[in-house]
């Protein structure tokens, strides 16, 4: 049987769709973890990145955080926090949020920093306060990059929440880890397919969001600037 047949059979089996180990419950858990981690990371990183971009300061620190963040292995971070906190229920939250911070921070900083100084100078000349410049000029113009940072973070968190099933977290990763442990390849294959679909759905959702909230004039910015 090919991979797709295995997955199809598993997905269409009735017992997959209800109960505490059913797909709907696992999906909701997965989205919950992703949402909480992403919200925490956003609250920390977005204002910080925007403020640093506005002040045009701290570029070196930001790039260092980004490079270091990219090098950190998710699995290693998860098991380390898990072992150090002797399996506390919140242990997954720290690595998940930590992984989401660098892309949000870097893109917020670069987005605001990249706003054409002529725009901010014009706003200043019109008598806008710094706060108004930030809110009415810099953030809207930087919106595509702010969203890109959130999208990259969301994709990473969805993937890492899957891996977190290894340290006992629920969510779609459960199928993968449990299936591997009990040698049931159809469960593993089904879980993998669901994770792929979820990642693509998240990607698509962010593209749609961009279409909806980014002003028309900014959507096709060329890279000539």
């Amino acid at each position, binding site marked *: 049987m090919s991979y797709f047949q295995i997955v199809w059979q598993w997905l269409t089996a009735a017992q997959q769709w209800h109960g505490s180990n059913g797909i709907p419950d696992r999906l909701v858990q997965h989205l919950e973890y992703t949402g909480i981690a992403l919200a925490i990371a956003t609250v920390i990183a977005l204002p910080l990145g925007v403020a640093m971009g506005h002040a045009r300061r701290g570029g070196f620190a930001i790039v260092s955080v980004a490079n270091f963040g*990219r*090098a950190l292995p998710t699995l290693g971070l998860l098991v380390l926090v898990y072992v150090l906190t002797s399996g506390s229920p919140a242990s997954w939250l720290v690595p998940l949020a930590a992984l989401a911070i660098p892309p949000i921070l870097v893109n917020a900083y670069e987005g605001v920093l990249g706003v054409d100084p002529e725009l901010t100078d014009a706003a200043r000349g019109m008598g806008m306060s710094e706060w108004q410049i930030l809110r009415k000029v810099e953030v809207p113009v930087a919106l595509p990059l702010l969203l890109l940072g959130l999208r990259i973070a969301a*994709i990473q968190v969805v993937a890492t929440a899957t*891996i977190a099933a290894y340290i006992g977290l629920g969510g779609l990763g459960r199928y993968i880890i449990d299936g591997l442990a009990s040698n049931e390849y159809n469960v593993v294959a089904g879980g*993998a397919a669901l994770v792929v679909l979820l990642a693509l759905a*998240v990607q698509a959702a962010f593209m749609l969001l961009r279409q909806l909230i980014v002003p028309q004039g900014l959507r096709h910015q060329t890279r000539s600037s």
Partner: protein
Amino acid sequence: MSWAWANRAMLAHYLGQHLYLSLMPILFGTVIAVPLGIACVRWRWAWPPVLSLTSIFYALPSLALFLVLIDYTGLTDWTVIIPLTLFSMSVLVPNVVDGLRSVPDPVRQAAAAMGFGMLRRLIQVELPLAIPVVIAGLRVATVASISLVSVGQLIGIGGLGYLFTDGEQRDFPTEIYAGLVLLVALALAADAVLLVARRLLTPWERGRVRRGTRRVLAVAWLGSRTDAT
């Protein structure tokens, strides 16, 4: 520390495996991405579909791809190498395209005026000038690949990732620390090698004010600006 020294043979073994598993995808990814990027610049209509494809590959969780591939490749190194190749490729292609497009038109025209043919212009003028942007992409792909290999440990092929799962099962943080330190050191070393390579390959950039460097870094992190806007 003493634990790491006592087990240095084992650590070296996993370090070697990790290096192999993470660098093969970079090699294959580059071999695919450079011609593909060149083709996308040459034939403009090819770029939008290729870009969509790379952004899809970028989004796919590597663990899921490993598991899908088990059915085709069994539990071999290829199960890890192929998905990571796709990932590196999806990071590199936009950078190759951006790099080639960043070559100023007057430079291109000057080369044409000097009688350079299409191929010679590409090899002697356009590709060398694209090197900084391509290497920025290589840095992202390499560091990410080194960090992602450890996820392969969940199917038993993960280089230094072994130290994470083994440390977790034995409730032994030292082993996890050792894995993290070695892995981050490997990533930083690979990054340093690429920085040196860029310096050697682009002598004309030396001594120039480093204003442009940070922007290139940022573009690399974004994957692709075109994707962003």
